[in-house]
């Protein structure tokens, strides 16, 4: 799904002439204190003037069930007592047989790493990590085309981190979804997103390919945006006269360090 914002205005949030494009089947990160404004516009939770298009269809004619907005959990996130009730609450908007829906619930839970036993659990007995996984499972049950996920790893214990990271990548690569990640964490955005939009004072400061945006160190530093650790490390290393500019993952860097240190020792 491709999304276009065309000349969006909102008086309350002083949004003026907001134009941006979110590309189909990519992971787009949105950085900035008010990054949830974009999500609220997309889910029709904020009044605006202007046009938002989904694949050349005005958002007003679009089935909002095809969009899932997975927010940070707070005390208002869940409305029912049991995990299963929370799934059946979502079913109200979907025309589907009970038996098939149950299968869908179980596969959503398994996808995030929770088993069927959770269906009988009371929500108040879940840990924050489990509650967060439940919210992600609930967000995927409708098989949305667009998934907006806010701070995907907040409250998650480390053991779930790689699983959720893999789910996000699979949603894009295997299931052709369009994904928007709202986050303030530049390490995460650098690692996971294809494209990036940085908002400042509710206006677009810059948008484009993530790796390209993070190349402009001076610009980002001027705007008080933290550089990802991996870039800071590469810069520190380059001050020692060592070129790691082509290494892009932690494992490549480990390999680079080992080779470099061995070379030095053999000199």
């Amino acid at each position, binding site marked *: 799904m491709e999304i276009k914002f065309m000349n969006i205005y909102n008086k309350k949030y002083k949004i003026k002439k907001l134009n941006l494009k979110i590309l189909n089947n990519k992971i787009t990160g949105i950085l900035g*204190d008010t990054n949830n404004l974009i999500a609220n516009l997309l889910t029709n939770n904020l009044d605006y003037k202007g046009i938002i298009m989904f694949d050349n269809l005005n958002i007003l004619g679009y089935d909002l069930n095809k969009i899932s907005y997975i927010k940070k*959990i*707070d*005390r208002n996130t869940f409305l029912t007592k049991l995990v299963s009730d929370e799934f059946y609450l979502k079913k109200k908007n979907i025309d589907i047989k009970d038996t098939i829906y149950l299968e869908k619930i179980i596969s959503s839970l398994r996808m995030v790493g929770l088993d069927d036993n959770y269906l009988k659990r009371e929500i108040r007995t879940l*840990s*924050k*990590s*489990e509650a967060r996984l439940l919210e992600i499972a609930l967000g995927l049950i409708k098989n949305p085309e667009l998934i907006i996920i806010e*701070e995907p*790893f*907040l*409250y998650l*214990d*480390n*053991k779930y*981190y790689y699983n959720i990271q893999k789910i996000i990548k699979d949603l894009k690569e295997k299931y052709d979804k369009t994904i928007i990640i709202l986050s*303030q*964490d*530049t*390490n995460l955005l650098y690692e996971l997103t294809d494209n990036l939009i940085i908002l400042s004072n509710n206006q677009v400061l810059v948008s484009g390919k993530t790796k390209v945006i993070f190349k402009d160190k001076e610009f980002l530093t001027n705007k*008080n945006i*933290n550089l*990802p*650790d*991996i870039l*800071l*490390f590469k810069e*520190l*290393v380059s001050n*020692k006269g*060592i070129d790691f500019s082509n290494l892009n993952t*932690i*494992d490549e*860097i*480990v390999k680079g*360090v*080992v080779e470099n*240190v061995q070379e*030095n020792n053999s000199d």
Partner: protein
Amino acid sequence: MLSINNLNYKNLYNDFNLEIPKNNFITILGTNRSGKTILTKIISGIIPTTDTCILDNISLNKNTVLTYLTKLGVVSNDFNQEFLFKKVKEELAYPLLNLGYPEAKLNKRIKDISKYFEIEDLLNKNIEDLSISKRKLLLIIISIIHEPRLVVLDDAFLEMNKSDKYFMINKLNNLKKKGLTILNLTSDIETTITSDKIYILDNFNLEDYKEDSRFKESFIIQLSNKLKELEVTSQTYFNMEDLVGALWK
């Protein structure tokens, strides 16, 4: 500074003991459900105990609770921790008004603390206009505005951006000299950077720190642990400059 002696709570904490020395920055690392929040509630008297917690020679019980609490600052990790007022300055003044600070003393304290934490430009701002990271920063500042002897931080650095996080940790660490003791309960290894001692809280039991894959490691800790496994370095580095310095002298 703080002693917890033979704490027993609902078969979770059994004969639990903890000693936090004066003017130290102590971190207790724990995953979800390890017992951090219950411990915070016990130390702050929200879960009542009798003569189990001793803070600055005051043993916490129903007769001493008010004096005890003047010596304690707490940031709890409830969802949506709410502010009571509209403006930053009003939030900062509130704990001091409760303690009966006269106006001049109150204003001086707000001035001094905002200067120290470099938030003077935020004082007249509306809280709803602050970023999440700055709100979290503000919660910590409010918790120590009444100059407590001990501050207990329960996942207080969560959702702070990296620069605010390191700024706050260093500022708190420097307050040790002025008599503040910090107890940081967290699941974030990055916040241990200045800690004098690190413990792990595992299923309501306290252990000394050792490498533990349950905690999300920052890039630099991950990198240095991988290099340690390959015997390129001999220790875990928490800081990028230290690791680069050790690799290329």
